């Protein structure tokens, strides 16, 4: 059976594997074929472990043949961002400063992937140290002249082109949700701490979340169930009774294409029965300065603790930002720590005052821009950072779901966020929207 759209999902592939329509080795072979066909163009992978993946697929087939209990990801080929330790694979975080480093153990999330039966294809390309200051070689899945977003660029693109059925990324300020939007896949940043970050090269641990890339919301729930304690969503066909707060200022700050796609998505949500109300939470605008005052000094400290890291080999933009982190005073850091609960309390207050089930806004302020840009990275990052950092500062779960196309045919995304640990409710709402959006596309 060829790797068609159905097979390129976790749910479809898992069914095919259990029905013996395909073996894990055959499925991996098809994913590797896709990888070899796409990598010369999109460059999603920093390291591919074909031998290790083939061995894992063979073990998965043996388990199937012997009727052993199967995990939720049994035989599913997945990819892992190269800031996360996978034993005996490089751990270079997209940086020459860490060249030659090989992990001697699995991160906790990788151990859970393996226990769930996943086949790890390799490590995906990231912006250097997940900072977003350099230009990685990865290209957008829909147009190789366009940027992939970041910093989890390779994970998003690998999932989009089918060189993995799902991937793990990290999100310290939108690094899962923004590339997910630009590449037309589902990107989830769950509640802070829901996925254990042990073994992750986290530059800003106060804000760093592990997150997932999948091709559907249903896959997102399946993937999450293997790596975090999260009850299965109660899928629903409508959104009757759901109240969603619209972060209107973020909509209005987005490009016209994005505003039009968001308006269409809002119409779909209303058609499904949801009630949409505009909400104004001024404290949300504090999230970026709070986040930067936390992540900059934490990054400077974290990099200083990496053994044998050669700072002289960092890209200039990354080096400058780490230097800036060293100039943030302890007093400022503590001010930001005190301000974080202020943002959290304001968002929580809005949920209570408006009886909200979630918040919505675009997950990218514009379609993917040019892959090569003269504009300084910090300026390019400012707009998407504003749309995402509030969910990192509050720690609430947030998912980006594909939401139409730009005039140039590039993917766009809608971001839905819910109260902490409400992933199941969040994904149920997201799935209802996704189904309606897809059936709208089909009609």
């Amino acid at each position, binding site marked *: 059976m060829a790797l068609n759209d159905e097979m390129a999902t976790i749910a479809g592939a898992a069914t095919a594997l259990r029905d013996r329509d395909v073996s894990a080795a055959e499925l991996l072979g098809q994913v590797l074929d896709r990888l070899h066909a796409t990598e010369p163009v999109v460059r999603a992978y920093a390291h591919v472990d074909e031998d290790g993946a083939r061995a894992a697929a063979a073990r998965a087939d043996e388990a199937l043949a012997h009727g052993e209990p199967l995990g939720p990801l049994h035989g599913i080929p997945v990819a892992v961002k190269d800031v996360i330790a996978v034993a005996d694979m490089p751990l270079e975080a997209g940086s020459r400063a860490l060249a030659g480093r090989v992990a001697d153990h699995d991160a906790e999330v990788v151990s859970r992937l393996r226990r769930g039966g996943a086949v790890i294809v390799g490590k995906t390309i990231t912006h250097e140290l997940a900072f977003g200051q350099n230009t990685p070689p990865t290209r957008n899945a829909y147009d190789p002249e366009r940027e992939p977003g970041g910093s989890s660029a390779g994970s998003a693109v690998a999932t989009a082109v089918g060189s993995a059925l799902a991937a793990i990324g990290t999100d310290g300020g939108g690094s899962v949700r923004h590339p997910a939007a630009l590449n037309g896949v589902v990107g989830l940043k769950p509640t802070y701490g829901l996925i254990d970050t042990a073994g992750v090269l986290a530059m800003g641990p106060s804000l760093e979340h592990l997150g997932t890339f999948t091709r559907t919301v249903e896959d997102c729930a399946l993937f999450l169930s293997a790596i975090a304690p999260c009850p299965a969503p109660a899928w629903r066909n409508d959104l009757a009774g759901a109240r969603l707060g619209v972060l209107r200022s973020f909509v209005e700050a987005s490009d016209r294409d994005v505003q039009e796609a968001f308006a269409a998505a809002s119409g779909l949500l209303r058609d499904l029965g949801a009630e949409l109300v505009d909400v104004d939470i001024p404290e949300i605008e*504090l999230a970026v300065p709070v986040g930067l005052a936390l992540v*900059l000094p934490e990054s400077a400290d974290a990099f200083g603790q990496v053994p044998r890291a050669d700072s*002289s080999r960092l890209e200039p933009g990354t080096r400058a930002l*780490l230097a800036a982190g060293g100039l943030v005073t302890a007093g400022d850091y503590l001010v930001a720590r*005190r301000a974080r609960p202020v943002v959290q309390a304001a968002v929580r207050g809005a949920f209570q005052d408006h009886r909200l089930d979630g918040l919505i806004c675009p997950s990218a302020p514009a379609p993917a821009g040019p892959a090569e840009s003269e504009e*300084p990275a*910090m300026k390019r990052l400012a707009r998407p950072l504003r749309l995402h950092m509030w969910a990192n500062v509050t*720690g609430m779960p947030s998912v980006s779901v594909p939401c139409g196309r730009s005039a140039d045919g590039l993917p766009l995304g809608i971001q839905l966020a819910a*109260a902490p640990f409400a992933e199941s409710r969040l994904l149920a709402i997201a799935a209802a929207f996704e189904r309606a959006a897809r059936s709208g596309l089909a009609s």
Partner: protein
Amino acid sequence: MPRHPADPSPELVRMLCARAGPGLSDDDLTAVVDVLIAHQEAMTRLRGLEPVGEVGAFDPTWR
């Protein structure tokens, strides 16, 4: 030493250069100095906030 054209604080640029080492372009410095200036401005506002809850705490009761 490169100077940020609108930087009111040459001392900031001097400290940044000292920490970052050689090889930074004017664009690199300008972008990061902008971040630091924005940071300093934001700090004034953050210092004026009324504290709520524990420092840095994540509220586990919000479900």
